[in-house]
């Protein structure tokens, strides 16, 4: 292996360039040869007799050295090149101009970017409304032909969304109930109001914490799964295959998932209620000397049915939003791997924002109604 080099020689207004050594990528990596200054000439000759090996990268480097000296690559006459080297050199020379012109990447100015983003948000909203419209029609269709409903798919979805989420929902709400009652207990203890921890925990857990936390859990767990699954199906043209079979992808894929969420989320919230109260009960017994019997008695007095019902009523609303967002984002996946990731992230973000917003709206409405 010898280092690549190039040496100019001027004879009678002709410039001879002698290239020597290995003009290979592996050699050029460590050192890039320079072309020593030489007077300009009418005709330029490139002598390749001493080139020991040449690849396309080497040929490009050679041409670039000439090009940077304002020697047009097309005008260079090749001397003493071996056949193999000449073919490579000619191939690169043909394509040299393409390698030098950089296609300017489209510039994104702030204002244009804001405009484009606003446009895509608008498109997204319109698409979503369209999607809800299609779903409504599908529900109408299904009501007329109830036998077409995919009951097995529904059962599968309920299993993945509800049954497999049970341990996680229980554990999360148990710990949350524990921490909440503990912190509340520290305050209540100062006033000797230990028993009121039951009131506070019951209200907070059943009305706010369980529905919101469980909905966020489901949005992250099942919402993301739905988008990724439907998105992958779209990439592999499974959705088109469903359409070609004369089936509606909405009836086959979307409605069972939304319905499964509708069933699973209230159930999970109820489990969350119990887990949270159980956590509070444990900490109340340990920290505040409120025995489980006292805790349950007090719970019976202060926990109104309405509180639990309000929490449970929110759940199906969250479920519809999570399901619709997740399915819609799945359907809007473009045909590449990156887009699945983007849409899945977007599903989780949108669902969580939706859950928190709806929860706030519920709170305002319920306060205004005096419930």
């Amino acid at each position, binding site marked *: 292996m010898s280092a690549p080099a190039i040496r100019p020689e001027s004879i009678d207004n002709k410039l001879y360039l002698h290239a020597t050594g290995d003009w290979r990528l592996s050699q050029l*990596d460590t050192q890039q040869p320079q072309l020593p200054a030489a007077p300009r000439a009418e005709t330029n000759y490139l002598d390749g007799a001493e080139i020991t090996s040449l690849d396309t990268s080497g040929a490009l480097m050679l041409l670039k050295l000439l090009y940077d000296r304002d020697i047009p690559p097309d005008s260079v006459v090749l001397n003493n090149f071996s056949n193999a080297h000449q073919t490579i050199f000619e191939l690169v020379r043909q394509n040299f101009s393409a390698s030098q012109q950089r296609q300017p990447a489209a510039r994104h100015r702030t204002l244009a970017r804001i405009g484009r983003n606003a446009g895509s948000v608008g498109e997204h909203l319109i698409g979503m409304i369209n999607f809800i419209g299609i779903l409504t029609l599908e529900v109408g269709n299904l009501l007329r032909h109830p036998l077409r409903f995919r009951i097995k798919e529904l059962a599968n979805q309920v299993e993945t969304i509800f049954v497999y989420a049970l341990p996680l929902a229980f554990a999360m709400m148990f710990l949350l109930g524990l921490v909440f009652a503990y912190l509340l207990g520290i305050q209540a203890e100062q006033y000797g109001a230990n028993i009121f921890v039951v009131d506070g925990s019951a209200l907070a857990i059943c009305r706010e914490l369980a529905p919101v936390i469980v909905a966020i859990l489901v949005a992250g767990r099942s919402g993301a799964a739905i988008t990724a699954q439907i998105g992958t199906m779209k990439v592999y043209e499974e959705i088109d295959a469903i359409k070609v079979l004369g089936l509606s992808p909405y009836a086959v894929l979307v409605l069972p998932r939304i319905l499964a969420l509708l069933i699973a989320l209230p159930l999970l919230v109820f489990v969350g209620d119990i887990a949270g109260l159980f956590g509070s009960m444990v900490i109340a017994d340990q920290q505040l000397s409120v025995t489980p019997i006292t805790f349950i008695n007090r719970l019976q007095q202060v926990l109104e049915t309405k509180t639990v019902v309000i929490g449970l009523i929110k759940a199906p609303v969250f479920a519809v939003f999570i399901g619709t967002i997740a399915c819609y984002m799945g359907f809007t996946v473009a045909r590449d791997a990156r887009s699945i990731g983007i849409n899945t992230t977007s599903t989780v973000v949108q669902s969580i924002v939706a859950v928190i917003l709806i929860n706030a709206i519920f709170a305002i409405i319920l306060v205004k109604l005096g419930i």
Partner: protein
Amino acid sequence: MTDMLIKVEQIVTRFGKNTVHDGVSMEVARGEVVAVIGGSGTGKSVLLKEIIGLLRPESGRIHLFGVDMLTADEADLEQVRQRFGMLFQDGALFSSLNVEQNVATPLLEHTHLPKAVCLQLARLKLAMVGLPPSAANQMPSELSGGMRKRAALARALALDPELLCLDEPTSGLDPISARAFDHLIRTLADNLGLTILLITHDLNTLLSIIDRAVVLSGSKVLGSGTVAEIRQINDPWLHEYFSSCTTLETAHGN
């Protein structure tokens, strides 16, 4: 002695109870264009993945550029990996990078050249495989199947490899693009002195650009040689395979 780039000896591969290769041996000399053919499930792609070190056979030996792929350490493998290019069946372009960046990636990772030079080399490769300059800034998802294959070929050529491995280069292309792609491969092989190992089902590819073919059948090598030599082998699958070729030739004759 001829310089053997690929030397596969007595490969045995099993997936569970399913024996894919049972004593497969083959060789590829420098400068050859060799095709591996065989029915579905005869382990063509598995063999290719074993040769380039993506899969490990149960026993046997594989030498690539004289390096024993099964016992070599990471440093040697790293050296070997820069000496061959691989074109995957669906291109396997990185979907988060545009075409130019895709092709420049091997250069940026394995050389110390300035980024501008890497991008120039990438655009040279794109022009060599016949892509228009406007394709450089497009994302892989915006390209047609044929363009995607060409871009993937440009990436496989980025480091000026000595060996090019192609997994079904013409699958999913229309006949015209497929022939153009065949022609491109052969031109590059001749001009750049490449050695090519390819897997194919495409009879046209076999008849037009191949020096030698290796037939895999029943987890063994059935035979190897020029297309004319292979047609002499008495095997039901090969007969059926080449009978469609006879129709093709008749059609051409008409």
